[in-house]
């Protein structure tokens, strides 16, 4: 299943990309979402670097996810793919496009659940609403960060 989310941020692309380059800032991006816990990261987005975090399903089932960065092309894009977790595949591409002095942040996710976890049906019923909610809050947090003079409350 493919997901695409966009958020226009009233800041130059270099500033917005630099914010995303620090994995610690994921905490600020998911502040409104209680189901996020950063486990470990290597401090950069270079291909081969890894990041681990935990989210949860239905507030009772934590799910640990490990990702490895695969693309790093500052300040246009970077991406990561799943190396640990219950999905058959999970890739996340982050794109940053300049538009009239602002930056359009586009997140493109391709996610597949294996059949034994419910496949496409479980994706639609369980996973998709969680992803949509997470990226709605993430977009709001990004906008709030930009409007608050890009100060990062960690």
């Amino acid at each position, binding site marked *: 299943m493919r997901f695409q989310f966009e958020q226009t941020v009233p800041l130059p692309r270099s500033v917005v990309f630099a914010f995303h380059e620090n994995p610690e800032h994921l905490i600020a991006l998911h502040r409104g979402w209680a189901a996020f816990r950063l*486990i470990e990261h290597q401090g950069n987005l270079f291909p081969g670097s890894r990041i681990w975090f935990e989210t949860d399903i239905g507030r009772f089932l934590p799910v640990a996810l490990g990702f490895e960065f695969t693309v790093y092309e500052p300040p246009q894009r970077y991406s990561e793919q799943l190396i640990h977790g219950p999905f058959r595949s999970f890739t996340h591409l982050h794109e940053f496009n300049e538009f009239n002095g602002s930056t359009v942040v586009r997140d493109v996710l391709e996610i597949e659940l294996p059949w034994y976890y419910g496949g496409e049906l479980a994706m639609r019923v369980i996973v998709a609403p969680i992803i949509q909610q997470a990226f709605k809050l993430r977009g709001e947090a990004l906008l709030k960060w930009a409007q608050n003079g890009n100060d990062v409350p960690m």
Partner: protein
Amino acid sequence: MEVATYILFILGVLGGIDILLYHSVSHGIRSHEDSRLELITHSLRGPTYGALFLLVPNFAMQGLFFWLLIGIYVFDVAISLGDFILERASREFFGGLPTGEYVLHIILAMLFGGLVTSTFYGVGHWATLPTRLAYEPAAVPDLLRALLAFMAVFVLWSGAMDLLAAIRLSKKTAPPLP
């Protein structure tokens, strides 16, 4: 063995939930290198519970066979103790066991106590009878016994998967040969 059979069924269902939700979806321990030893303890539950799911609802185990059953119970207690000891290091990277898994383990431990107690109260006299193993199904619905037979196959398969994962992860983390 009616009560023991019902308790064993609930144990099996909750154990399956533990495997599916916490071992697989939540922490994916079959691909987590720190969980190698925990996987070995889990793999031992394959033959242990495979035997219990088939023996308890279907057979009269008298004399030495009764003590064999008690031996399986004791072996399972040893597996659980080993599991508790190893889990701390195994799940440290993830911040420890999920809260729900802790709760589930406590419930499973209480049910296991109930299984042992119901065995002694229900058929404790088998211990003093002549040694004999006979097909004498417990007075429970056939469907329940069929489900337990299916669960025996599942737990054996799951144990085998845990063992294979432990071997794979051990090879992955083994130091290179000089």
